């Protein structure tokens, strides 16, 4: 019971079919359905450097390859590098016979003690920046290639447009000669498929010199059979791949890495396109502008205490229900039938989508994610309390109230075990099925949700059904 919300013990069935703890679920107030990370659309909201906490516009991020201009990571261990200042004696510009002290800067890692001096990089005279960027040695060749293939593709496109009306049938589908090197005729029809094809007038495509093959390749270094290996001078795979374009093999070739920036994400409901979560713009803020966590909208279920379970023996399991909303809600627990409830859930969802005027136009085409197949097998029979109960609204001031408010509700003692502010305890009777080693029970939580975004014409309360799965615990063999 260590986890505050019993994350892995009590899970809700999201509308996409995955079981998730309440802390990982969102509640779309417009569709009135549960959503989770699996079934919402994620978006990049803001980009920022995690070290200097500066925001970076996305165009700038593209140019800088998602890296901060001012902060560096250690190429050896990945820790953030810090700037060190020191002074050196240099000949004075006025009088070369005298020396003056000058401040210089270099980068050092406080974790593994790597410094830019280790790899022979010259100290900088300014505190930030000044480090020369590494170039791609093949830049020229690659640039000419890119231009070449662009013009080839451009021509292909033009030709296709010309042919469009004469050749209705796509050439893709009219070939008979498969893979084998085709006859002259076959080759003709295959050539346009090749990205390399010089189609039509070759002279129109841009200049490009293909690289030449050689008969000899670099062999092993002479001394490999005699020279001792100094392990610390050879980079690891991680060190190599942290600068993918260069992949230095020796630690002497490591180069400070610009720090990679991070994103804040916002989440959007795929069905109604409303935001479910949107962070604040400021990188140092951890708050949200919008955060529709299920935790604020769905009654929270917890197990009160761990009980011992025996095969075939009926055991009482107490759950607490807690109302997080500022409105009273009527709650009932209904039996959970895996297959049936899935269907009904979907139906209910569709109706509410159609019925609600809040949803954006029906022209929005929703791309459904593939259906999830979750194992919803229940390993115990459960007797649920019959009848309804009222969950009191959350009242943040109630804590300071001495008076007990519970007498206001005419509770059925068969249903309500206890009541405290906006919490209620209910008892389930669980009978583990034969051969079950772990007890999992399920029920549908039916409650009246007060819709805060509904328009005046609609009823403000809607009845929602949320399937809940409870991992009660292991069965002890009797």
């Amino acid at each position, binding site marked *: 019971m260590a986890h505050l919300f019993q994350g892995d013990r009590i899970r809700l069935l999201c509308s996409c079919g995955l079981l998730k703890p309440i802390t990982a679920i969102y509640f779309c107030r417009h569709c009135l359905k549960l959503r989770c990370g699996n079934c919402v659309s994620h978006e990049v909201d803001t980009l920022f450097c995690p070290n200097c906490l500066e925001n970076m516009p996305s165009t700038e991020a593209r140019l800088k390859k998602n890296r901060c201009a001012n902060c560096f990571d250690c190429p050896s261990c990945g820790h953030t590098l810090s700037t060190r200042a020191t002074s050196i004696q240099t000949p004075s510009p006025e009088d070369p016979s005298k020396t003056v002290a000058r401040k210089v800067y270099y980068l050092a890692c406080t974790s593994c003690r790597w410094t830019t001096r280790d790899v022979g990089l010259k100290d900088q005279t300014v505190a930030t920046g000044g480090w020369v960027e590494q170039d791609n040695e093949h830049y020229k060749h690659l640039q000419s290639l890119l231009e070449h293939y662009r013009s080839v593709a451009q021509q292909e496109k033009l030709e296709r447009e010309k042919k469009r009306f004469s050749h209705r049938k796509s050439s893709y589908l009219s*070939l008979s000669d498969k893979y084998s090197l085709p006859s002259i005729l076959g080759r003709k029809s295959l050539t346009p498929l090749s990205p390399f094809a010089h189609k039509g007038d070759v002279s129109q495509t841009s200049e490009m010199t293909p690289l030449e093959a050689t008969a000899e390749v670099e062999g092993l270094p002479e001394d490999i059979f005699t020279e001792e290996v100094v392990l610390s001078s050879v980079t690891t795979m991680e060190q190599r791949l942290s600068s993918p374009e260069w992949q230095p093999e020796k630690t002497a070739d490591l180069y400070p890495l610009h720090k990679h920036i991070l994103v804040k994400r916002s989440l959007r409901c795929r069905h109604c396109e409303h935001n479910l979560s949107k962070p604040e713009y400021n990188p140092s803020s951890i708050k949200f502008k919008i955060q529709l966590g299920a935790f604020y909208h769905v009654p929270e279920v917890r197990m009160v205490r761990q009980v011992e379970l025996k095969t075939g023996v009926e055991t009482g399991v107490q759950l607490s229900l807690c109302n997080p909303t500022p409105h009273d809600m009527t709650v009932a627990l209904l039996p959970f039938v895996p297959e049936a409830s899935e269907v009904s859930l979907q139906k209910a969802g569709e109706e509410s989508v159609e019925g609600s005027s809040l949803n954006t136009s029906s022209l929005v085409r929703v791309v459904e994610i593939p259906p999830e197949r979750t194992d919803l097998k229940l390993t115990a029979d459960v007797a649920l309390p019959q009848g309804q109960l009222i969950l009191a609204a959350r009242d943040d001031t109630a804590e300071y109230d001495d008076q007990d408010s519970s007498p206001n509700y005419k509770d059925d003692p068969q249903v309500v075990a206890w009541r405290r502010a906006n919490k209620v305890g209910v008892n389930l009777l669980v009978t583990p099925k034969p051969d079950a080693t772990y007890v999992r029970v399920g029920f549908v939580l039916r409650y009246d949700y007060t819709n805060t975004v509904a328009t005046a014409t609609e009823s403000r309360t809607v009845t929602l059904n949320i399937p809940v799965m409870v991992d009660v615990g292991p069965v002890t063999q009797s």
Partner: protein
Amino acid sequence: MPLFEGLGGIGLINEKNTTVVLDIGTAYTKAGFAGEYGPRIITRSEVKCRETGKNIPLFQYKNENELRHHLVDFIHKLYFRCLLVNPKDRRVVVVENLLCPTVVRNTLAKVLFRHYEVLSVLFVPSHLVALMTLGITTGLVLDLGHKEATLMPIYEGVVVFHAWQALPFGGSLIEKSLSELLLDRAVATTEDGTEHRLSSIMQDIPNRYLEDIKVRTCFVSTLERSSCLQNNKYDRSIEPPPPPPSVHYPLEGHHILTIPGTVRELAAESLFERDQDALTLATLVLNALLKCPIDTRHKLAENLVIIGGTASMKGMKHRILAEVRAAAASEQYCQILPIPSFMLHHPPAKDNYVSWLGGAILGATEAVMLRSYHRDQYLASDVVPDWCNLSFNTCEDRDEKFA
């Protein structure tokens, strides 16, 4: 297909919607943007298991559903941790191995189109686009990846598909024989200074150590030394060449592993030793040539391209070339495959991202618009017809798929 063709009108080099290029390998994934000269990241193809929270290989899955979850999580990481752009309404180029299982390809399409709502996907064959980095149209492309070595001849821009070859000779095989050699020959010094055989301390060596040892200390020996060592196996009177120096390697913080020089030298030999089927990397190349039409063989042999991370191993390319030449001169091949010269290309990239770079070049051209498979098409049918793949454009193949 009016919709498909109509797309040509949309501006391509729109900075805001640069195409994403992905090469998802068994060991490492390369990801970046079309038109750039190197991938933004090369990351391990690993995901956190949804149940256990442990890192597991992306392509280790029990069923399609699990594979899809892996891909969903992995692609999420690629976009929101590495590339930092919205996947929605953006084009993707996927560099794929032609021999990649259909389930992987279909699941990837499903994830990209349905979960991430990408605008279009273009699958390009890795061997074919590797040639684009060189600016040539004919070549025999050997990809030495992690799981396997795959070879595909390409003549005048056309994949000679029926001549493909593949063997499970990749980085993982080297790691496997390295592990066997170490357990057999290496000693480890424990904290109290006593020496033990490695096999008495651990039954198997964790993969990350094996890779690290492989990359940092092992190399591919020369053909002469290797045959000398081979002969020594059968005839003890032949003096073996002196072994390279051994390496002291810290293992799990409290052991010092002494890696014998012979192990460093022999780990990669398994790629060249003839197994029961008498197949080696050299015969792979020659058998592919044999399957190609006669008039293409010389040109193909003069345009060898070796790519993939394992090709970066010290001495690898040199050895392959030597082995191929030796095998071609051997009795088995000299009559049926008279090839005067073998030549090797040097792609303008590190070996492990050559294919990615090819994809990035192609992805920056109009071809992305002309050949991609569009989201609306996918959603209408939920299948990826193979004609969106540059090399699967034939009628029959498509029919086979639907049959």
